[in-house]
């Protein structure tokens, strides 16, 4: 162990350490000036971004393989930190409006982010478990942030109970995989499976349970039950962060564990992930049709998108396609993050102080009243459907291509058909905004508007010119653990 090891986890140390320092600093910041805490939190995130960029392109294992630094982890860490900055900017005015402004919000957000950073570079199942908990526990508290509002409390309690249950599955799965392979280190697992020194039945059950635990975190069918209720009840700024950050964190672990550590067991998890992907896409999109509340609609939409990203796993079971599948999943995660943060930003702008204004009907007349905001929302909806010229189209195109390359044509067909179904409810929002008359009440807050502008610009820009993002992702790969 040397100082290089500490440099390898520097972004994590910065975010977690800064959160702890901020916890103390915040005690002496007066209650009406919590904007200072938000600003300081963003400063910490910028420092962490600098730390990630400074070691971009480096590949190494640290702490005896506990931590893996590679293109995959650096790319995801950049994504997480970017999401964190936008989430703080979105939350600032919203918290004041709902009268729930407390400095702890930003601190808990930083802690949750530190869990995501750790997740991206976890090289051991124990670290994966630690990261999942570090990611989730602050989110449980954040979901309850509008306490004593009953729906916020309900949301937090549901999330906590089911999340704890899912963590149980994850840790039991880890125990069984350990029982089978004799190690929790991902690189050790690769070697153990390759040398056939494993108990296949334990490995099957163990990896299945890990799939259940992480499937819960990314809200894949049939582990999605909590999603609509939790997303609806939690404060919208928390939902925005949760829908993007927690999902990306879950996928970071799924991709790392299944593609880089268990390729030898692909025969076992390939059918499982294939069916989960197909079911998630189908059910998420079909259930979203009947929703009238925009938060529930976006919750089901996020389930459906988990299904799309999940397609990368069965595709990666074909070894030649695996690197491309990881890149396609990462690309889709970026498109999902940009588009969804924007869409939730519009929801934040439409929400009134007491929490109404969340029905899709409330968006009537938005096209006349605030053309720019309506245009941004239309762009996000098109991107979620996957219609050019938006980044959502590029993401789906890349992903479906990979799935077809892996000879899973029926799965790609399910994806295309469910995308067509999704057009119905996404386009309905556009129809309501432009073709119905109404007098929507809209907030205009500088920070929130700028996040909507940035994400809308990103959605459009990467939709036309995805080259920059693709070039960056093409350099990304999982560290080859088998040597």
């Amino acid at each position, binding site marked *: 162990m040397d100082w290089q090891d500490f440099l390898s986890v520097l972004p994590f140390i910065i975010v977690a350490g800064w959160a702890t320092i901020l916890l103390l600093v915040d*005690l002496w910041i007066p209650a009406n000036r919590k904007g200072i805490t938000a600003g300081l939190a963003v400063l910490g995130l910028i420092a962490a971004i600098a730390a990630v960029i400074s070691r971009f392109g480096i590949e190494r294992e640290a702490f005896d393989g506990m931590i893996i630094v590679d293109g995959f982890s650096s790319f995801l860490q950049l994504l997480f930190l970017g999401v964190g900055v936008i989430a703080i900017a979105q939350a600032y005015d919203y918290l004041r409006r709902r009268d729930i402004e407390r400095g702890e919000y930003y601190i808990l957000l930083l802690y949750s982010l530190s869990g995501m950073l750790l997740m991206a570079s976890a090289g051991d199942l124990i670290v994966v478990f630690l990261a999942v908990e570090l990611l989730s526990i602050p989110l449980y508290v954040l979901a309850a942030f509008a306490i004593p509002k009953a729906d916020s409390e309900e949301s937090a309690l549901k999330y906590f109970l089911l999340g704890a249950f899912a963590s149980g599955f994850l840790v039991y799965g880890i125990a069984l995989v350990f029982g089978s392979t004799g190690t929790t280190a991902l690189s050790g697992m690769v070697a153990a499976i390759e040398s056939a020194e494993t108990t296949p039945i334990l490995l099957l059950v163990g990896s299945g349970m890990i799939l259940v635990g992480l499937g819960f975190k990314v809200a894949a069918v049939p582990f999605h039950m909590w999603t609509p209720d939790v997303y609806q009840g939690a404060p919208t700024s928390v939902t925005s962060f949760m829908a993007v950050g927690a999902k990306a964190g879950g996928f970071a672990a799924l991709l790392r564990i299944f593609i880089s550590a268990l390729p030898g067991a692909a025969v076992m998890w390939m059918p499982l992930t294939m069916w989960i992907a197909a079911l998630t896409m189908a059910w998420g999109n079909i259930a979203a049709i009947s929703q009238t509340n925009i938060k529930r609609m976006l919750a089901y939409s996020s389930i459906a998108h988990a299904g799309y990203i999940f397609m990368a796993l069965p595709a990666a079971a074909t070894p030649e396609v695996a690197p491309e599948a990881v890149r396609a999943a990462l690309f889709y995660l970026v498109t999902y993050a940009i588009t969804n943060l924007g869409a939730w930003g519009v929801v934040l702008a439409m929400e009134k102080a007491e929490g109404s204004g969340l029905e899709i009907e409330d968006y009537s007349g938005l096209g006349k009243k605030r053309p720019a905001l309506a245009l941004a929302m239309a762009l996000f909806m098109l991107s979620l459907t996957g219609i050019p010229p938006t980044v959502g189209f590029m993401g789906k195109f890349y992903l479906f291509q990979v799935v077809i390359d892996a000879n899973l044509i029926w799965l790609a067909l399910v994806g295309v058909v469910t995308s067509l179904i999704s057009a119905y409810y996404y386009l309905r929002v556009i129809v309501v905004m432009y073709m119905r008359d109404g007098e929507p009440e809209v907030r205009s807050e500088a920070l929130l508007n700028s996040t909507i502008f940035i994400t809308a610009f990103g959605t459009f820009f990467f939709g036309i010119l995805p080259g920059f993002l693709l070039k960056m992702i093409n350099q990304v790969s999982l560290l080859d653990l088998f040597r």
Partner: protein
Amino acid sequence: MLEPWIFIALLLGAGMLLPGVTIVANWLLAPKKPNPIKQSIYECGIETVGETYIQLKGGYYIYALIFVVFDIEAVFMFPWAVAFDKLQLYMVMEGVIFILILAAGLAYAWRKGVLEWV
């Protein structure tokens, strides 16, 4: 071979005999003057006044949480302290950082008024 077990059997016998003798001697020698208070069932503390099935204020639970934090800290502190002179510098530093993090938590709770009795 069996010697250690013989000692245990002797110890067991002596252990039963000593209290048995005192209890029997007490019963034989003590003067017997019963009254209702002496014969009532033994209870520690004073008798309750009013209904006992009422809601109590659980205001001290955060206090208990903080106690648990420091209870666990002690578990980690002992091996650290025992091996202190054999550790490398960075291990000592990690122990210090661990304590500092817990101290930060205590400072936070203190400032938020958790340690005030309510």
